[in-house]
């Protein structure tokens, strides 16, 4: 009797666990299903390449927002990836055990916990309020700062797993420290650094909150990084909450593109990274 009830309990628990697992994974399929279902119908060459149509007339597209997201991401990567890699090298090779190193590490990790909207607020107070002008530069700064902790962590981790024998072999040959770091350790850790940078790029591609009050939005082609710039993310937000059927449909189309971009990078890094360095 006792044994039977224990087995019955086990079965009941398995059923509950399966139900909970279902609750955890169903949202992904539901989201992807909704995006594909609603997004595919608006896809066309015109949608991908033209400016938004004047309000009220049909047609038009999101070309300026696609270009805008790419421009802002590229400039943000130009800021965030070098700073992230250098900070990661510092943490892994120069200050791994020191007090200074652990202070920097704490700050880098805290930076990754700062909500993205607060980082956007920082760029807003520093640049937009000072120059009284919405600008892509502020958005670039915010997204660049968000990349730093992600890239730094990936760099530090992939450099730490490089065997100490190689460093010692370098030292025995009398190679200067910076050459050991760049020519030996960094070249071994290259794969991890590149995947980390790509994942950081994918991550900021979806960030919207820091752009709302920095890059703002625009219905025209980007003319300069110092001007307001349309992005896919802000377009999805603006169009989705507008309530106009045509705009909401375009927001779904933009969502499909954004998810494709983010997921492609993630899947590529995961499959490629696993083959190349045995686990990303």
């Amino acid at each position, binding site marked *: 009797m006792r044994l039977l009830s*224990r087995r019955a309990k*086990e079965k009941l*628990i*398995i059923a*509950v*666990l399966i139900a*909970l*697992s279902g*609750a*955890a*994974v169903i*949202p*992904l399929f*539901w*989201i992807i299903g*909704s*995006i594909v279902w609603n997004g595919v119908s608006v896809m066309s060459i015109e949608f991908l390449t033209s400016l938004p149509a004047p309000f009220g007339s049909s047609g038009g597209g999101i070309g300026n927002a696609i270009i805008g997201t790419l421009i802002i991401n590229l400039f943000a990567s130009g800021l965030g990836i*070098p*700073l992230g890699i*250098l*900070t990661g090298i*510092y943490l892994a*090779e*120069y*200050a791994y055990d020191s007090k200074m190193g652990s202070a*920097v590490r704490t*700050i*880098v*990790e*805290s*930076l990754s*916990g*700062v*909500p*993205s*909207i*607060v980082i956007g*607020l920082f760029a*807003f*107070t*520093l640049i937009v*309020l000072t120059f009284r002008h*919405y600008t892509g530069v502020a958005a670039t700064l915010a997204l660049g700062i968000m990349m*730093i902790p992600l890239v*730094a962590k990936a760099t530090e981790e992939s450099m730490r797993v490089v065997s100490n024998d190689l460093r010692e072999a370098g030292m025995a040959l009398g190679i200067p420290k910076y050459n050991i770091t760049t020519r030996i350790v960094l070249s071994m850790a290259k794969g991890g650094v590149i995947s980390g940078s790509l994942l950081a790029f*994918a991550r900021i*591609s*979806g960030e919207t*909150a820091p752009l*709302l009050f920095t890059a703002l939005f625009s219905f025209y082609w980007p003319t300069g990084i110092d001007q307001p710039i349309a992005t896919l993310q802000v377009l*999805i*937000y603006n169009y*989705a*909450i507008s309530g106009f059927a045509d705009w909401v449909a375009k927001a779904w189309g933009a*969502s499909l593109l*954004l*998810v494709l971009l*983010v997921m492609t990078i*993630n899947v590529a890094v*995961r499959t490629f990274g696993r083959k190349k360095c045995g686990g990303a």
Partner: protein
Amino acid sequence: MVGASSLIVVAFFMMIFAMLVVRSYPSIINDPLMAFGSTWDVNLGIYGGLPAILGTLASSAIAVAFAVPISLGMSIFFTEYAPKKVRAALSVTIDMLATIPSVIFGIWGLWVIAPFVKTYIQEPIIGSIGFIPLFSGPAYGLSLFLASLVLTFMIVPIISSLTISLLTSTPVELREAMISLGATRWEVVRHVALPFSKLGIFAAIILALGRGLGETMAVTMVIGNSFVWPFSSPSLFAPASTITSKIASELYEAVDVLHVSSLVGLGLILLVITLAVNLSARLIITRISRRNAAE
């Protein structure tokens, strides 16, 4: 050069604080107790942060309460019961869920989940136990409850991935000892794996709470942005606001200096809360890794 770049990163971090303090200064001078004011009225120039702060805390706390059983259940199923193929599928799904941008959760919540929740959850509950103030109507769809639900899906991957790695690292000897005594799998989980990982799971929950507190886009799009909750109606089904939804929906059209600096002040409060939450999670994690190193 690497030292200099680290200093730049540290300087950025300090500047975030400094700029937020400087720019929220006018509102601090105007009303040092802004965080405790219960009215937010732009036309009258009254900026009280309490509804937004309460909304932030409530939405995240409810989301964590939903997410903990789901994540633990999934993690236990994953580590103890699932066949290898199911495990691979689950792990890919959880990883992909974590990469979906917040604004996508927002558009999905607004146009797919909101009508669903209104018809199949809010209306039946309000119809049956709506006399309890916490569940009173009307059913708007966009509500604190919906925001918490969408947040739940966003933080499940955070708690799950940490919990899975903790449960997997339970010492094999302890497991085998239990199994040799005739324990069922659940008894192994209940008496060995969970007690062994409980501190780490607690840290994972705190980390997820920190993520929820700072989440912006999805919450802004589904919470309904009412600045009177909980003072009008304490119902979970009423529209509310959070610190993030207020900043996201008002800052780009704010012209009044006091309005802007009050929003920046709210951001400063959010920064302090999330840093405290994240640091405490980090302290726990450091303690665990020290304990594991000592063993």
